[in-house]
């Protein structure tokens, strides 16, 4: 048996569940009421995406990605996991990508059709990221400070962005803008699995 075969998913997560959930809570404690501003940015970005104002929608997503990169990953998560700094850089790269799209992308010629499957999926995903996910922690018995909020915590930021990207972008730009959010959500899912 090779050494690698002896590793489990848990061996790559260097903290326990209580430490991770406490990190989420500390973000809430440290930055409340910034949550309200971030949620307003997210909701406005979703509204603009639906109104075919792609460039402005992408521009509004830049501050949340930048904030999560620095405040969550580089300043806090990196204390627990050496990979945190690198993930922070990936989030900054996503912010730069959204900024580039805001400046160069022309957007779809027509308004998004609400009945098209990608747009319907995008609306559902974005609403879950903005309004559904923050309720999970309080419903699960954690404090309101532990609520994961768009622009403060990485999961809702990635989910809401994926939804907005599905609505606002087409072709290669959609796929390009979805890579980092999707990769983070995969990593986050594995982390939560290992912490069970």
């Amino acid at each position: 048996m090779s050494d690698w075969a002896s590793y489990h998913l848990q061996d790559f997560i260097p903290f326990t569940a209580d430490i991770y959930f406490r990190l989420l809570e500390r973000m809430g404690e440290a930055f409340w009421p910034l949550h309200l501003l971030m949620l307003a940015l997210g909701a406005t970005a979703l509204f603009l995406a639906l109104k075919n104002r792609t460039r402005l929608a992408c521009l509004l997503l830049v501050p949340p990605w930048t904030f999560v990169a620095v405040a969550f990953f580089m300043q806090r998560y990196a204390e627990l996991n050496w990979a945190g700094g690198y993930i922070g850089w990936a989030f900054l790269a996503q912010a730069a990508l959204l900024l580039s799209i805001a400046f160069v992308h022309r957007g779809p010629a027509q308004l998004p059709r609400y009945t098209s499957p990608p747009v319907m999926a995008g609306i559902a995903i974005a609403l879950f990221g903005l309004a559904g996910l923050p309720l999970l922690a309080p419903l699960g018995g954690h404090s309101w400070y532990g609520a994961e909020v768009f622009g403060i915590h990485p999961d809702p930021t990635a989910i809401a962005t994926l939804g907005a990207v599905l609505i606002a972008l087409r072709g290669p730009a959609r796929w390009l803008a979805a890579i980092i959010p999707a990769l983070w959500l995969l990593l986050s899912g594995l982390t939560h699995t290992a912490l069970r």
Partner: protein
Amino acid sequence: MKNRLTRRQLLQLTGAGLAAAALPRSLLAESTALLAKPIPGSDEKLPVIGMGTWRTFNVGNDPQLLDARTRVMQAFFRQGGGLVDCSPMYGSAADTIGYALKRLGIPESLLSAEKVWSPAGGSTREQVAELAGRWGVQGFDLMQIHNLTDWREHLAALREMKAAGEIRHIGITTSHGRRHWEFEQIMASEDIDFAQLTYNITHREAEDRLLPLAREKGIAVIANRPYDGGSLIKGLKRSGEKVPEWATEECGCRTWADFLLKFIVSHPAISCAIPATTRVEHMNENMRAGRAPLPSTSTRQRMARFIESL
């Protein structure tokens, strides 16, 4: 002061006496002191339950969790705990230990165990000095080579440090049953004091060669992953399975922590096990497992068969 017993007191005493008579003999013989085993080649004794810190002590600079881990360490030392094991691979765990030791003071019973790791590149002394600063100690009792990385270079440097009295013991580590062949070669050919390896009731590969070799060479053995990363004890607790009565009667096992840890530390070659926990109540459970009585050889075999049957 009145010495006469009231009717109620008399009934209570009678009840207590009857209850004691009904208890298994092994429980009555149970000691409150943590068992300790001699460290080969020295006059020291090592308490059989130590403390691991992988995942559990990597809390960053969160004051709430730093205080919580301080309480865990306090419970450990209050019950006679000795060996605390850490590694530079464990994130901020060394800083958390340093935070706790600053508040608790450095107990006499502490046996500080750290690790050096790759890349060596002449950095062994610097690594040890940096870790000592994070712990807030003058030096370490035991310095181990993490997962055999750059072991030749580290070992040479650690020997010099031991000769100069900067560290007291030298060890090597592995986990998950990795690189046992190379581990065995080092145990057989090099002068080391401690070997840390994975040994628990479901991972007993070390029984074949490494543990007999440790006894032959007079090497103390630290068993890591006693709960197999937590999955073993969580699985038993979630299954609803009860600790078998024969284990309670024969070696005082009342909890799964007792069952799993007593199995490990009763192996004659094992010096101590190092469970890790985030909670004081679990620490208390772990420490209780280090008290007499321990299972006999035949009971150990029965314990292993029982777990295999689940």
